[in-house]
């Protein structure tokens, strides 16, 4: 039991129901013109085949915010590799945050998106992030640093994604 419970405590699970098609949800996650419109607003580039690269870039807003605080912000925020891409149902990738020296030194984590069509034109998106060996990234993704300007993590990103797909507008309007 103790052996099992240690790594599980480092996994974060998020689920959101969105009035949109699975394809629309898939596109919003994997296409740069969509990733720029919600959450952290950075450009996300996916080479959607096993072994293909994922690159999440910092947005201009992130760079400006960093510069204002005297913190250099790199161009590449997140790097990763695709493990499985089954459009529009499942995406499994590795995920490593380069934004901050505190996260850049951490391990590659494993991120899974599961997209399921439900009756009534609703799609269920479940995000599972296995964050073993990445406590700093885990804190940022849980929204612990939001008041310091690090964004609200996955729940903030998914809430914004839902708002964008359902109303055509993200939370920032």
């Amino acid at each position, binding site marked *: 039991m103790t052996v099992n*419970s240690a790594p*599980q405590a480092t*996994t974060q699970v*998020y689920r959101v129901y969105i009035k949109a098609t699975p394809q629309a949800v898939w596109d919003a996650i994997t296409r740069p013109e969509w990733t720029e419109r919600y959450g952290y607003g950075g450009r996300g580039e996916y080479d959607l085949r096993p072994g293909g690269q994922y690159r999440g870039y910092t947005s201009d807003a992130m760079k400006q915010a960093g510069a204002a605080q005297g913190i250099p912000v790199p161009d590449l925020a997140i790097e990763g590799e695709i493990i499985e891409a089954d459009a529009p149902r499942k995406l499994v990738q590795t995920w490593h945050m380069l934004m901050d020296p505190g996260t850049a030194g951490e391990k590659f984590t494993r991120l899974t998106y599961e997209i399921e069509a*439900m*009756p*009534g034109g*609703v799609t269920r998106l479940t995000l599972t992030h296995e964050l073993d060996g990445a406590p700093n990234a885990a804190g940022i993704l849980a929204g612990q640093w939001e008041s310091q300007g690090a964004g609200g993590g996955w729940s903030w990103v*998914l*809430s914004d994604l839902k708002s964008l797909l359902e109303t055509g507008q993200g939370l920032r309007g």
Partner: protein
Amino acid sequence: MVLVIDDDLVFKALADETRRFLLDRLFEKDGRTLTDLASELEMTRFGVMKHLRILENANLVVTRRSGRTKLHFLNPVPIRQIHDRWINKYQEHHVSALLDLKHQLEKEKP
């Protein structure tokens, strides 16, 4: 099976001390079994299971299978949505009310 989680379900699920207690325990340590969670409460397993089911129907808890065990994870997204939908709105209202006051005061300056 509830498909679109509405705010009512979330508020109803949160309007209970035991269920808030369970969410707080999951916030401290996520991915726990029913047995593990039940050990923290003076309540039958059946009672705890019932509360967990209400939390799951409100999408505040998501379960995942790990081998033969079922693990319960806290899902903060519905609370975030309430925050974004309700709380932000009133905070913005306060901010704009203050700005109106500022404009009003500045206009009155001689």
